[in-house]
């Protein structure tokens, strides 16, 4: 068709008389056929064309029934016998549930009665111990409930920890305490030195090219030095090796040129036989010797066995003893024993009134829980930036705040201006300020504790806020500074890992919720300004 249309129309084919009417004729033919056969099939609805034959369809239910009706031969045989009882395949459910409810009801009734008897809210939990079930309980789904550790819950201090101890036992305990402290010191001394954040020296190598050249120089120098040494030694060795090889070659040559005569061969074979005999003899001798010294060998074996056994026993005992004092390793961190609570010699007064008692019993309890393997030991997590990663964290410092009159260390925000406040994080290279524009401000009235604040112009309170992304190698985020009754800046801390707390006792990164707990009086302000 396309060809025809593209060709020139000037020929015969272009005439109207020559245009084919085949398709029209086909259509007419078809339609007359359809009319004769009773209409177009494609136009007819499917119901007219098909019909569902339901004559052989059996409903599912009926099928099951039919299946049940079928009686197996064995059953039919059994059925004939009147003494055989029919066993139902499944238990009827309704009965059981009724029973259950009855039991429950009776129980509740009992309890209610008990309650009435007591006239109180509480009931005796172990009241039915003696009557129905002594030992096993249907209420207890777990048969085995065992403590993981053999360490007692309350460990009584040794005699040396008495408030008025005998001199010997006190000395013993003191020695232990000192040992504990010294261990820490030695560990710190012997451990690797931390990598310094900053290095003193001229920082004049500014461009990379200069740095590279210096590096190259160092490397080249070193390699040259090492190379020099290496070359010398290698050269000697090579020379030696050459000498040896040349000698060996000469011999080889000599051997190959010499002919092996019959005589020599005979001699060799004789010698070989002789050697064989000798070795046989030797073996025999050895065997007889060994047989002679059998008791000795047996003794040796017994000795070895005993030694092994002793070793095993020692190992076993050591393991048990370790388990008694050391908890299982449950997590990332090892359990660290709390310091021994013992009086110093000058603190021993013999008077209960003047006793300098321990005031950190809560820690003692906590450590006991850790020791028994109930809690997983953990470090002081508040120091870490790597916690509460989905929240922003604020820096708090424990120490004597600026201008405070009392000596007691308290938690407060870092003072002074932003940069100096952050200085204790190390240097400022991993901190950058997002902008110079302040974000918010906060007005803090000078309290009685800080009466002289106005004399200093820059008595700022800095509030540093960081947000970290979990997946990145380094952390980034914002730091906000409250400058005293003025401004609030943003900066971000990048990978703060080393801290130098010079004047402060401790520091912590806290979330907003924890911050509110520290400063309940400023809760309103924090709620309005800080995001969590």
């Amino acid at each position, binding site marked *: 068709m396309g060809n025809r249309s593209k060709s020139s129309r000037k020929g015969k084919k272009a005439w109207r008389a020559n245009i084919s009417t085949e398709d029209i004729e086909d259509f007419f033919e078809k339609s007359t056929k359809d009319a004769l056969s009773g209409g177009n099939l494609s136009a007819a609805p499917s119901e007219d064309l098909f019909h569902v034959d339901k004559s052989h369809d059996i409903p599912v239910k009926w099928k099951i029934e039919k299946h049940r009706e079928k009686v197996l031969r064995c059953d039919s045989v059994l059925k004939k016998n009147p003494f055989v009882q029919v066993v139902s395949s499944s238990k009827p459910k309704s009965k059981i549930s009724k029973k259950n409810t009855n039991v429950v009801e009776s129980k509740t009734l009992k309890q209610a009665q008990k309650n009435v008897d007591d006239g109180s809210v509480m009931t005796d939990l172990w009241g039915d111990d003696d009557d129905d079930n002594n030992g096993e309980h249907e209420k207890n789904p777990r048969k085995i409930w065992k403590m993981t550790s053999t360490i007692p819950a309350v460990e009584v201090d040794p005699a040396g920890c008495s408030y008025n101890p005998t001199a010997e036992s006190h000395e013993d305990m003191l020695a232990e305490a000192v040992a504990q402290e010294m261990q820490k010191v030695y560990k710190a001394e012997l451990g690797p030195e931390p990598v310094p954040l900053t290095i003193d020296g001229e920082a004049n190598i500014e461009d990379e090219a200069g740095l590279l050249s210096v590096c190259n120089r160092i490397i080249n120098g070193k390699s040259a030095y090492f190379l020099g040494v290496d070359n010398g030694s290698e050269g000697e060795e090579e020379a030696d090796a050459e000498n040896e090889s040349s000698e060996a070659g000469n011999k080889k040559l000599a051997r190959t040129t010499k002919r092996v005569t019959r005589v020599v061969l005979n001699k060799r074979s004789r010698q070989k036989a002789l050697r064989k005999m000798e070795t046989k003899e030797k073996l025999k001798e050895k065997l007889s010797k060994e047989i002679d010294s059998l008791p000795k060998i047996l003794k040796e074996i017994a000795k070895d066995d005993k030694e092994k056994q002793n070793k095993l026993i020692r190992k076993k005992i050591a393991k048990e003893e370790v388990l008694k004092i050391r908890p299982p390793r449950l997590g990332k961190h090892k359990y660290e024993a709390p310091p021994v609570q013992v009086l110093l010699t000058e603190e021993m007064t013999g008077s209960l009134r003047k006793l300098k008692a321990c*005031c950190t019993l809560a820690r003692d309890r906590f450590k006991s829980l850790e020791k028994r393997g109930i809690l997983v030991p953990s470090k002081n997590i508040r120091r870490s930036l790597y916690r509460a990663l989905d929240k922003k964290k604020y820096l708090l410092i424990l120490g004597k705040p600026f201008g405070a009159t009392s000596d007691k260390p308290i938690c407060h925000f870092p003072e002074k201006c932003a940069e100096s406040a952050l200085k204790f994080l190390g240097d400022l290279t991993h901190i950058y300020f997002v902008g110079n524009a302040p974000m918010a401000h906060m007005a803090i009235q000078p309290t009685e504790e800080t009466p002289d604040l106005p004399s200093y112009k820059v008595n700022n309170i800095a509030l540093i806020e960081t947000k970290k992304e979990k997946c990145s190698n380094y952390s980034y985020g914002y730091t906000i500074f409250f400058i005293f009754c003025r401004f609030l800046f943003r900066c971000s801390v990048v990978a703060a890992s080393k801290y130098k707390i010079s004047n402060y006792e401790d520091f912590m990164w806290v979330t907003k919720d924890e911050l509110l707990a520290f400063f309940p009086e400023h809760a309103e302000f924090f709620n309005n300004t800080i995001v969590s």
Partner: protein
Amino acid sequence: MPKHYRPAGKKKEGNAARYMTRSQALKSLQVNLNLFRRLCIVKGIFPREPKKKVKGNHHTYYHVKDISFLQHEPLLEKFREIKTYQKKVQKAKAKKNEELARLLLTRQPTYKLDRLIRERYPTFIDALRDLDDCLTMVHLFAVLPASDRENLEVKRVHNCRRLSHEWQAYISRTHALRKVFVSVKGIYYQAELEGQKITWLTPHAIQQVFTNDVDFGVLLTFLEFYETLLAFTNFKLYHSLNVKYPPILDSRLEALAADLYALSRYIDASSRGMTVEPKVDASSSSQSNDRAESELRLAQLQHQLPSSEPGALMHLVADKEVEEHEETRACKSLFKDLKFFLSREVPRESLLFVLPAFGGTVSWEGEGAPFKEDDESITHHIIDKPSAGHMYLSREYVQPQWIYDCVNARIILPTEKYLVGRIPPPHLSPFVDNEAEGYVPDYAETIKRLQAAARNDVLPFPGVGKEDLEDPQNLLYAGVMSRTEEAKAAENKKTMAEREKQYHEELKKELKKEVTGSVVDDVAAPVVEEGEGEESSVPDAAQIAQDTADMPTLMMSRKKRKLYDAMKIGQKKKSESVERIKQRKKNLKADQ
């Protein structure tokens, strides 16, 4: 193929199948870490240490069955419900719908731990066995300052106080206290209930602090469970005395911070069969509940000071407790006819607990006390000052340590060493078994002798191994007698050994004869035999002893033998340490 390759779809085996890490557990339980921790504490599920840590050494592992045990806990659903409810409250608050938030807060869903206690401690004995930690924690939180920062409410501190006092009142009423040890940390007590030894530690009367390295959230969860446990235990114990449990106290004494005394009076009254009517007090206290918050704070400050303890257990009617242990009787009658008066500066709380537990009558300086300082019948005045001001001649002025030492020794010690202004003798720990340790301090020996002397009329004086000639006590108390006895015993031993030797020699001779008789043909044999016989025919006593000691080891099974060996090693270590201590003591003396 790698060593640990496991085709996909194949089940895991061994430790990989038995243990899961904490984060896996969180995922499978669909809870957050906080909730998981709470659940674990409450259900008593602890991390385990598998032999092979499949995921690495830095993970915490739980047993799979433990986790599935948690999965079926109804409390888990309850916690979820509470969480969703909290969200509702938060939403209301965020919409500034204060009314709705308040309304919602009043109908918060709550949970109870009763069922869990029953589950973890199927019998009462189980609960008693595990009471050490519980008591220590409750006693500790009874003296902690309430703080907003750590979420420690005044109400809870008060509840802890009440529970601890109830416990102490029961113990002192039943005279179940056995040992007391005052250490730097606090005061250790040991009581014996139904055959179980329960040890607990109470802090000294100073301010306890919150330290930074302690996660108080965790401790508070523990406390929550322990409060419930102790409440039920107290309930059971009080009912065993026929006393109604939530005790109704005299409000006047309570206000004076003398609840222990009030409790003891309450127990007395109810065990006598008297009906207790001060229900009025209870109702009045409930009316003033809203005011209570501020009052409680004030009261708590007062409570920080040592508060008082049951005093008047003296006027007990004769008990109907039939089966009383001998030890209980001894404890009950220790301070029977003595009357104590406590000065202001002594640890009142502790002494008010200890003295009645050993049958003493006690009063203190302050309001609500049973009797005043000028009472003529007072026998002992407990004082902890360098010098007493006005002294009554009829009574003895002693330091508080005297009481503790008396209690541990179970006799009334002479008071000269404990008088006012003197440095008392060392306070020894009753928890140390001197015999097992092998080293006996001097003062312990003195006490031992005194005890023996107290028992002397009934029992013969036991031979004391090491005597100090300088010690006057020894000479006083039948030292000579003991020495003669010991000499006799030694002589006896010698004669016995000699006889044994003789007997053995005779036996050997008999044997020799037999041997020579039987083997006549061989000429060389008798000589050898004789030589051997001569060697073995003069066995010293030590060798015999060794032989006899070896016998049982030969008979023992391997397991037992190993255990025996282990014990021997331990004993050796102990003896070495004793030697060391002795050496030190010598050095100390030499220095002085």
